[in-house]
């Protein structure tokens, strides 16, 4: 059939690139994770689940895995609730809506690495803006990035700063889709205060959006890497070691390719699980409107 031939001509570049650049490498990661290969070495032995056994017995891996989750559990609620709050505040103002939206969105598009360098300066223990301000209020600032109890949370703070604008616009889209007459109906039914309107209309109607934004934020923050590499290198004392960073150092600093591949597999499994959750939530969301 002619149409079929035209179609295959049109899609064949995409299909070949899909195989070479995405599907092939993703499958290869699984295969490599079963070997002891090191980049450049001539020998490659099949070691079965050896890498995984080593991985799950490694204290650093568990530290890294745990840190990644702690990071997510700070960034996700923080950026979701702040995003929701901002969206509602901005939707309610009479003038300046697009100004606020653009201003809060700015960190989302700006180059995170450059801004991380700026944050490093702002967090400088003695001359950094943060500590100078804190000390003006008579408190002691301390070191934000070299204090093991604090460093991960400092990075999480930067993570929230960077992603809150994105969640805000996602929520604004969700708020727009709530029909205005629902609020009028709620008011007639006696929900007169702002809080009651939020509880009776906004929150339930936003439910699917909230779930969705939460999962999306989860996936994004699980991929944290840039700030770690620039600001802490996983330190101090592995306090900010996260999964992608561990993978990067194993695979590309020590060239333990097979071991790095095993970490990638763990990473991929978690992200895929979150993504499947997102798809489920997404389906729900389309049902609601």
């Amino acid at each position, binding site marked *: 059939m002619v149409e*079929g031939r035209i179609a295959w001509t049109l899609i064949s570049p995409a299909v070949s690139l899909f195989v070479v650049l995405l599907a092939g490498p993703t499958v290869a990661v699984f295969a490599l994770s079963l070997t002891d290969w090191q980049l450049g070495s001539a020998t490659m032995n099949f070691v079965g689940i050896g890498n995984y056994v080593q991985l799950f017995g490694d204290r650093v891996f568990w530290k890294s895995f745990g840190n990644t989750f702690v990071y997510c559990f700070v960034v996700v609620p923080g950026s979701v609730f702040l995003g929701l709050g901002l969206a509602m505040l901005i939707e309610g103002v009479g003038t300046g809506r697009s100004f606020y939206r653009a201003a809060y969105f700015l960190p989302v598009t700006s180059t995170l690495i450059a801004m991380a360098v700026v944050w490093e300066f702002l967090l400088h223990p003695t001359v950094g803006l943060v500590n100078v301000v804190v000390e003006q209020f008579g408190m002691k600032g301390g070191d934000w990035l070299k204090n093991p109890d604090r460093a991960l949370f400092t990075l999480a703070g930067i993570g929230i700063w960077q992603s809150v604008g994105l969640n805000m616009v996602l929520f604004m889209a969700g708020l727009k889709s709530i029909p205005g007459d629902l609020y009028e109906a709620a008011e007639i039914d006696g929900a007169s205060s702002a809080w009651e309107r939020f509880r009776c209309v906004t929150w339930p109607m936003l439910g699917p959006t909230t779930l969705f934004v939460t999962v999306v934020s989860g996936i994004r923050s699980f991929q944290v890497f840039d700030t770690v590499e620039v600001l802490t290198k996983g330190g101090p004392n592995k306090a900010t070691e996260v999964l992608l960073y561990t993978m990067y150092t194993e695979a590309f600093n020590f060239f333990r390719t097979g071991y790095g591949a095993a970490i990638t597999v763990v990473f991929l499994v978690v992200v895929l699980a979150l993504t499947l959750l997102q798809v489920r939530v997404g389906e729900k969301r389309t049902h609601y409107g």
Partner: protein
Amino acid sequence: MNRRPLLGQLLRHVVLWLGLVIVLAPFVWMVSTSLKPPNEIFSTQLSLLPHKWFAAENYHKAFTKVPLLRYLLNGVIVTAGIFALQLAVALPCAYALAKLRFRGRDVLFALVLIGLMIPAQAPAIPRYVMLYQLGLLDSYAALILPFAFSAFGIFLMRQFFKTVPDDLMNAARIDGLGEFEILCRIMLPLAMPAMLAFGVISIVTHWNDFFWPLIVIQTGDLATPPLGTLFFRNEEAGSDFGPLMAGTVVITAPLVLLFLAAQRRFIEGVTLSGMKG
């Protein structure tokens, strides 16, 4: 509109402005510091504007210490190259998936959806090995080629092409256009908004990408803006803040200006990609 109580409005603005002070502080302080001489930077006296303007010295030092312009140029080459390739691959594929009937179409679309789920870092190791074996590490090719296939681009364009009515293409066929001309003369002009949205996403993603350039680039001359920032920071050993901040201003400026110029497009585009995750 007039139902909003004045006090509530005022309160909203106050809260939003307080938030803005925090959110925008890094940007403001970055610019402010890039204008100050070292003694003012190291003083605990807070002031937005310098007493003694030092901008020329800081920026001059930033541009001479590291090839900042070269980094920006690399950024332009890499993002433009990636986007052009992605379009060339995605447009025909998306068109076929949306508008042509052929065997295997549904399977292919399912593959695109699966492709959407795979995070960019997952195929990194085998891609690196491939480039290593081809001897392409540390080159523009290493920065551009791995991203030629964009599942998201195909998905977005396919969804768009789906909304173009079949009868429009039938009318074009009767008017004498061939399949290729339908794509060029009818579909592409109509797809402009969708292509722009895709462009925003692709450019923001790859201009800001750090993970991949960090892995494949060793030579300073090939550094993209984020990687260049890191080189600069390491060079300075993190103490000469004036020029360093001048450098970050230069690196962040292009995207920020682009964003301010086309705010709505940016927000729409990035929102779309947020939807995708």
